[in-house]
C-alpha cells in the first residue's frame, strides 16, 4: 500500500491521499515534501502513502475565520495528528475529538479544495488497513 508510485499525488494536489517521505540513508521521516532529507541531507527520500490512521495530538476549534471562503465553514476543528507512520500533520476533524483519540482519515471539501478530515476509529473491524 506504500511507495508504489514515484511521486504519488496527495491531498495538497487534490488527491485523496496523505504522502510522506522516508530517508533510505538515515531512516528519517518528513511530512513537508523536499528533494532531500532534512535530518541528514541525503537526496531523494522515498515517497510513501500513509495509512490514514493516527492519534490526536492537539485540537483547536476555529470560530473566527479570516476569509469569506473559510467563514462559510465556521466552526471547524483544526487538529494535529500523530500518524501511525510516525510523522505529525495538520488536518480537520470532528468537533468532539479529544487528545489521545485514535482516528482515521477521510477527505472532505473545504474552501474549494479537498482536505484530510479525521474521525474516531471504529473499534470493531479489527485491522482495516
Amino acid at each position, binding site marked *: 500500500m506504500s511507495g508504489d508510485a514515484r511521486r504519488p499525488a496527495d491531498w495538497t494536489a487534490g488527491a485523496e491521499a496523505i504522502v510522506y517521505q522516508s530517508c533510505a540513508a538515515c531512516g528519517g521521516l518528513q511530512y513537508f515534501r523536499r528533494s532531500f532529507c532534512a535530518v541528514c541531507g541525503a537526496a531523494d527520500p522515498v515517497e510513501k502513502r500513509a495509512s490514514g490512521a493516527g492519534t490526536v495530538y*492537539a485540537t*483547536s476549534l476555529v470560530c473566527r475565520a479570516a*476569509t469569506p471562503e473559510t467563514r462559510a465553514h465556521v466552526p471547524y476543528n483544526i487538529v494535529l495528528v500523530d500518524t501511525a507512520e510516525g510523522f505529525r500533520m*495538520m488536518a480537520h476533524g470532528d468537533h468532539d475529538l479529544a487528545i489521545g483519540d485514535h482516528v482515521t482519515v477521510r477527505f472532505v471539501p473545504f474552501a474549494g479544495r479537498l482536505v484530510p478530515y479525521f474521525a474516531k476509529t471504529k473499534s470493531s473491524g479489527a485491522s482495516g488497513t
Partner: protein
Amino acid sequence: MSFITGVGLTAFGRHEGSSSLDLMSKAAELAIADAGLKRAEIDGILCGYSTVAPHIMLATVFAEHFGIRPAYAHAVQVGGATGLAMTMLAHHLVEAGVAKHVLVVGGENRLTGQSRDASILALAQVGHPDYEVPLGPTIPAYYGLVASRYMHEYGVTQEDLAEFAVLMRRHALTHPGAQFHEAITVADVMASKPVALPLKLLDCCPVSDGGAALVVSREVTSEIGVRVRGCAQAHTHQHVTAAPALSELGAEIAIARAKANAGVAISDVRYAAVYDSFTITLAMLLEDLGLAGRGEAAARVRGGHFNRDGAMPLNTHGGLLSYGHCGVGGAMAHLVETHLQMTGRAGNRQVRDASIALLHGDGGVLSSHVSMFLERVR
C-alpha cells in the same frame, strides 16, 4: 559593553491617518530626545517590518523619511521576536565598533491601515503554504493547538489562562497610553466570544496602531545607565506542525544560553518583560523561563506574584494583551516599560527594584526566541 540610552513609545490603539512611517518617526524622535542625542549622531538604524506597507528596504525608506544618513542600516524580520532580536544585534554592532548609536525602531498602523481580516490573513501566512494554510488556520488557531496540548499535559484550565488576561488588563489601567481602559474579570474572559478554542477573544491580544523605538549606544548618555548584560536566541522550527515536544521548545534553550552569556541566574531577576500575544503564550513562557514551575504560573498570578508590588513585577504597562500589539513595536513596548522601570521613571507604575530585568520575545508559533538580561548601572 552597550547601553540602552533612550526609549520612545506612542500610545497604542487608533492613530487615524498615521502611516507606519509616521508612527516609526514619532517613536524614533522620542527615543533620540530621551537619549539626549541629535539625529545626526545616529549612525546605525535597525527597523522591523510593516504588514500594511511591506517594502524590501524599509530601513532606508525610514532613514530617508526621517532625515538620517546612517553608516549601517537594514530591516530585521523574526515576527514577534523582532524587537529583541534587533536590540541584540544593535548590542553586538555597538560592541564590535560598527556604530556608536544604533536606533532600533518599529511601528505600524496595523489597526486603521487595513481591515482586521487582512491583518489576520497576513499573519496566518506564517503557516506552511501547502500543508497548513489551505486548512484555514489563523494565528489564534496555531496557538490554540499549542494551548490544548499544554493544558492536557500540565492540567492548566481555561480559567487559569484567563488570569493572565485579567492581570495584563489591570496593569494597563494604570498606563494612559494603553489601548484598553476597562477592567475585566475571569468571568468576562470566559464569556468572551470564542476565537479558536480554547482561546477566546480576551485571551488574544488586539490589533493596534503604534510605534516604539530605542537607542543602543557604546557609552551612557545620562546618570543612570541600562546595560545589556547578555542575550541569546534559539530557533527550533517555523511551523507548528514541525514544532518539537513541549519540553524541547526554544524558550528554554534561549534562556539557558542567555543565563550563561550574562552570568545571571533567574533568582537575580527583579523585573520581567515577557511576550504575551495570547494568554497561553505568557503562561508557557513564564514556565519555560523558570519564572514559575510547570503548570504553576496561574497560581502565581492569583497570589499576586506578578503584580506591580509583587515579587516579580511583569509587563507593568499591560503587555500585548492590553497595552496593545502593533506588530514589531508591540513587544518593543515591553522594553520601553522595562527601561522606565529601571531608571525610576515609571510614575504610578514604578516598582520597588528593577535593577536586573529579564526580557523574552517569541516569533512565529513559539518558533523564534530571544532572551535578554538588562542591568542598571550608575
